[in-house]
């Protein structure tokens, strides 16, 4: 698709710019009998930001992997700045000037923030590490991104967002000419995203080329010079930013029209019903302070706020994962002892879908059906014995509810896409038959189709009388799904927005979170 390089020429002219950043010809990747990439031809000009979009499984990440030197294509070739790419060798890719920022963190938890940023490429003089120089550069990087991370902080103790920033800093400072970003913003809050975008634009000014894989179409439209859409392993269309709208992108991705951000329909709820859950004075030292709220049956309660505002800690406290937390809990009018262990919380009728599906949610080495029944194995036990057929039929029922393909019920979870993994994770929480379902980041890093399905399943569960609490960094998603929104900031509850009188906007939530407007005094 040479039209990509045609229109938007980089701001600077020069001999080097004439050379494309990379040119891929006939890139094909087969996994067994499946074509993950089908003869992709793509040439991208240097000095631009290129976005690759598409649903999960469309081939964009595989293509990025081929560029990064991680995936070895079955056919085809890529030249990078005129030089042939040697596949399957990340080190060789680095020599060609390619730097990759992976979505999965490659942070080493026990090393300091500085050490992580300079991992593999430390500053040294005569083979002796020069700490001072690295600290200076780290400080400069923090200023550029407008973040404050203590240089000596042990990386493992930092938030996911800060770890992601370290990862990005490492990629940016490596001096690569072609930077590949694989969904860099999934765990970042709006201000941090802005910081990253600012740096990406600066890098473009400096003539660097960037390739961005993202599920966030707004972000792609705001940032990219060229947008390439993948569908079913093929290149659907590649064109300059000016030729795209969100609607045309979605159309190219799914091959047919999709309603844009439709608000999920909600059923009328009985007025004045007794609250399903009431909590009072929930406190977790260092994370949440004195939080009280209640939840009606059939209600979806969204919790908005920035990363680090204590949203996730609140859910974890309710789920009995934070033994240091305290508070009062009343379920259907009955006082319940404050849960000190997950089991206690589950007995009380709560279930948590944790934010990190790989680290906290799923056992990747087990089958989808084993994961689903894990939250309540007693239910599929017959005379003390677990049989695969009982487990399969019980979990099939759950799978159906979440739109998970039933024939994949026996697939090892590691081999599933993010969207399917998320469905399994939700199904697992559902299987414990909770009265209250708490979902932390229900749709992180999954495609539009799966996202839609998950949202309407949550609504359907609420319509059956379940109370649902949703936490998400994607504020649009919070607005879309919630009946009522609680806004948290610095561990405190700062606002409550009732959406029955009309939808809130992202800026309503951010204003509350930042203490602008009514909460400022």
């Amino acid at each position, binding site marked *: 698709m040479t039209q990509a390089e045609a229109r938007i020429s980089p701001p600077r002219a020069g001999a080097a710019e004439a050379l494309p950043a990379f040119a891929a010809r006939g890139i094909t990747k087969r*996994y067994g009998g499946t074509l993950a990439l089908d003869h992709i031809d793509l040439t991208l000009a240097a000095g631009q930001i290129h976005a690759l979009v598409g649903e999960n499984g469309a081939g964009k*990440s595989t293509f990025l992997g081929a560029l990064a030197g991680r995936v070895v294509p079955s056919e085809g070739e890529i030249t990078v700045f005129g030089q042939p790419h040697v596949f399957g060798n990340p080190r060789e890719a680095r020599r060609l000037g390619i730097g990759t920022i992976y979505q999965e963190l490659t942070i080493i938890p026990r090393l300091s923030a500085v050490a992580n940023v300079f991992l593999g490429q430390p500053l040294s003089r005569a083979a002796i590490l020069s700490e001072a120089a690295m600290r200076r550069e780290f400080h400069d990087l923090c200023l550029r991104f407008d973040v404050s991370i203590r240089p000596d902080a042990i990386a493992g103790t930092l938030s996911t967002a800060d770890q992601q920033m370290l990862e990005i800093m490492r990629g940016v400072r490596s001096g690569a000419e072609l930077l590949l970003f694989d969904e860099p913003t999934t765990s970042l809050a709006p201000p941090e995203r802005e910081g990253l975008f600012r740096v990406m634009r600066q890098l473009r000014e400096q003539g660097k080329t960037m390739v961005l894989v993202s599920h966030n179409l707004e972000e792609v439209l705001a940032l990219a010079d060229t947008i390439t859409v993948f569908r079913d392993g093929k290149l659907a269309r590649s064109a300059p930013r000016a030729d795209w709208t969100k609607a045309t992108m979605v159309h190219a991705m799914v091959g047919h029209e999709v309603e844009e951000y439709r608000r999920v329909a909600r059923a009328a709820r009985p007025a004045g019903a007794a609250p399903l859950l009431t909590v009072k004075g929930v406190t977790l030292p260092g994370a949440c302070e004195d939080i009280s709220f209640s939840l009606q049956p059939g209600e979806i309660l969204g919790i908005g706020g920035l990363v680090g505002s204590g949203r996730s800690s609140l859910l974890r406290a309710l789920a009995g994962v934070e033994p240091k937390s305290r508070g009062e809990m009343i379920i259907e009018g009955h006082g319940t002892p404050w849960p000190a262990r997950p089991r206690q919380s589950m007995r009380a009728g709560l279930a948590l879908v944790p934010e990190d599906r790989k*680290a906290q949610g799923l056992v990747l080495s087990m089958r989808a059906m084993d994961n689903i029944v*894990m939250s309540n194995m007693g239910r599929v036990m017959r005379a003390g014995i677990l049989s695969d057929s009982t487990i399969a039929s019980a979990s099939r029922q759950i799978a159906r509810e979440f739109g998970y393909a039933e024939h994949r019920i026996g697939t090892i979870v590691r081999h599933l896409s993010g969207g399917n993994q998320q469905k399994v994770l939700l199904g697992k929480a559902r299987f414990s038959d909770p009265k209250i379902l708490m979902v932390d980041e229900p749709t992180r890093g999954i495609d539009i189709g799966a996202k839609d399905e998950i949202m309407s399943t949550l609504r359907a569960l609420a319509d059956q009388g379940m109370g649902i609490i949703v936490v998400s960094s994607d504020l649009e998603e919070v607005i879309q799904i919630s009946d009522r929104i609680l806004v948290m900031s610095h561990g405190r509850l700062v606002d409550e927005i009732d959406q029955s009188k009309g939808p809130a906007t992202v800026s309503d939530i951010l204003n509350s979170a930042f203490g602008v407007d009514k909460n400022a005094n």
Partner: protein
Amino acid sequence: MQTEAQAHAGTGGGFSRYFSRDMLLQYGVVWAFALLLILGFIAYPRLFALQNLQNILSQAAPLGIVAVAMTFVIISGGFDLSVAAIFALGAVVFAGHADGLGLWGAAGAVLLISVICGVINGFIITKMKVNPFVATLGTGSIFGGGAFLYSNSAPQVPDNFDFGILGTERFLGWPISIWILLAVFVIGAFVLARTVYGRSLYALGGNEEAARLSGISVDLIRGSAYVLTAVCAGLGGMILSSRLGVGQADMGGSLALDAIAVVVIGGTSLLGGEGAVWRTAIGLLIIATLTNVFDSLAINTNVQQVVKGVIVIFAVALDLYARRVRR
């Protein structure tokens, strides 16, 4: 994304599915065992003689019993180096008390002591949060020292005429020790594959945090696996001392590493969360057959040591390779 594509390929069905590289790798240990049987038969035609088969199995019984429990611990993401010491403790206590308490009394004493050892291991690992490797290295030294102190470093030779029953007596024509070995394998395989407890061990080894959030009592499950290894080690010690007619504090030898080797050769991952008891059975049969054939060919035990080391490394490398290509 590419993993998604691979999952498609993996569930593609049809004839080729059963003969794919995946299948070859996943059941590689079975093919290896089959090959070993053929080569072994060529080198030593008496390999399949009933007498020889019984010999192989009864010799392998103590190690096999311990290896089943070790499978549990390894799948839970742990490790138990103290089994050799508990094995020796079981042997000397059984032999030492066979006269005073009678066979049943002595067996009860061994059971009690084994359970105590296992609970100590479990407590140190789950409550004091000491890494299993270090914890059982330490307790192994303690229990082993206890065996020497108990026996005053002297061989315990009981006068009880029935002492040899466990190790040498037969039932339906086969040695009792083989029946016990078989029972431990069958029960172990069933518990691991078909009970909530077994499933919880896999979950714990695969992702402890996910298991905890699923309401599984991780400390209890993890700790109990060490009680199992301890009880099986005690039982193994009793069988060996019964067969030899003597209990000695140095009987454990390299049992801990041998048991781990058997588990690993079968293809159970040292990383935890994956594996099976049938794999341990194959691992045990491979080692036992190899020893038998080598012994029949009068091959020096030092050479045998070298060969077994190579096999362990090869098995682990193959397991890691299989993981890479399947990913």
